[in-house]
């Protein structure tokens, strides 16, 4: 609903601005960056909550040096 009622008309409108075709480009970059950052943050937050439950000696592959 949100996409058909609001987002797509907004993209189409921005595409119609004379001489500018950025209406699709900038949202594409924003979506890509925000998605990657959100996923990265999710991983870091989750590892933070689990790290306290795992002793340091059980963290294989956490060092760049081969085990």
């Amino acid at each position, binding site marked *: 609903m949100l996409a058909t009622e609001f987002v797509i008309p907004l993209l189409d409108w921005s595409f119609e601005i004379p001489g500018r075709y950025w209406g699709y480009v900038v949202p594409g970059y924003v979506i*890509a960056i925000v998605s990657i950052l959100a996923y*990265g943050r999710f*991983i870091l937050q989750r*590892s*933070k909550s689990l790290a306290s439950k*795992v002793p340091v000696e059980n963290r294989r592959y956490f060092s760049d040096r081969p085990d």
Partner: protein
Amino acid sequence: MNDTGSRLTKLLGIGALAAWGAMMLWGLVISGPEVFQRDSVRLLYIHVPSVFAAYTGFGITLVGSVIYLRNKSRFWDIAAHAGAEIGTLFMALVLITGALWGRPTWGVYWQWDPRMTSTAVLFVTYLGYLALRNLDLPREVRSRRAAVVGIVSFLNVIIVRYSVQWWRSLHQETTFGLDTQLDDSMLFSWFLGTVAMMLTFGWLLVHRFRLGWLESQVEEQQLSDALAERRADAGISALSASKAEAL
């Protein structure tokens, strides 16, 4: 430094940020619009590299799944899971940026043509793989089933890759290759996009793998705690029963 960070992730992270900055400078500012696609060509500097990152993730899942089935390596099991999760993220970006590029170029966001349909099926297949990973099953069973699905799912990558050659498709054939003839600034923007996406992929992969290792350790700990509790309960019951018998 965070819990899954190291010197490697630091280098990958800094490299990815620098490459993203350079790619956006070249892709959005320095390089010009394309003759037919105009400015929407700039979406291809993230769309095509996202495909590479997604395929790399699914390739890691394939390799990890094969090795897991051969020697039950926990390392490769976790790597396979991490590859699929990150690959699915990049595949979602492929679908979104592709739709955004399709509207000004083809006049439609979506068309059920062979390339797009097979890509959507690929995305859903790996969502299924991730759902399977979250099933409440013994780890060995879950990993074995996921490994089989991880191997079978990769067949669709081949179908997606060659769909534009096997069937009549709205999607153009492979644009970027060794014999690509593109304006230098466009080619360089695409190259920077590829470097940015692959460094980002590497950064996410290392962190996700280490998170997977933590999850497996916690799961193992919970299992051994539950077993110990059960043994203790059984021990107490046995003791009570023997006392009752003695009386």
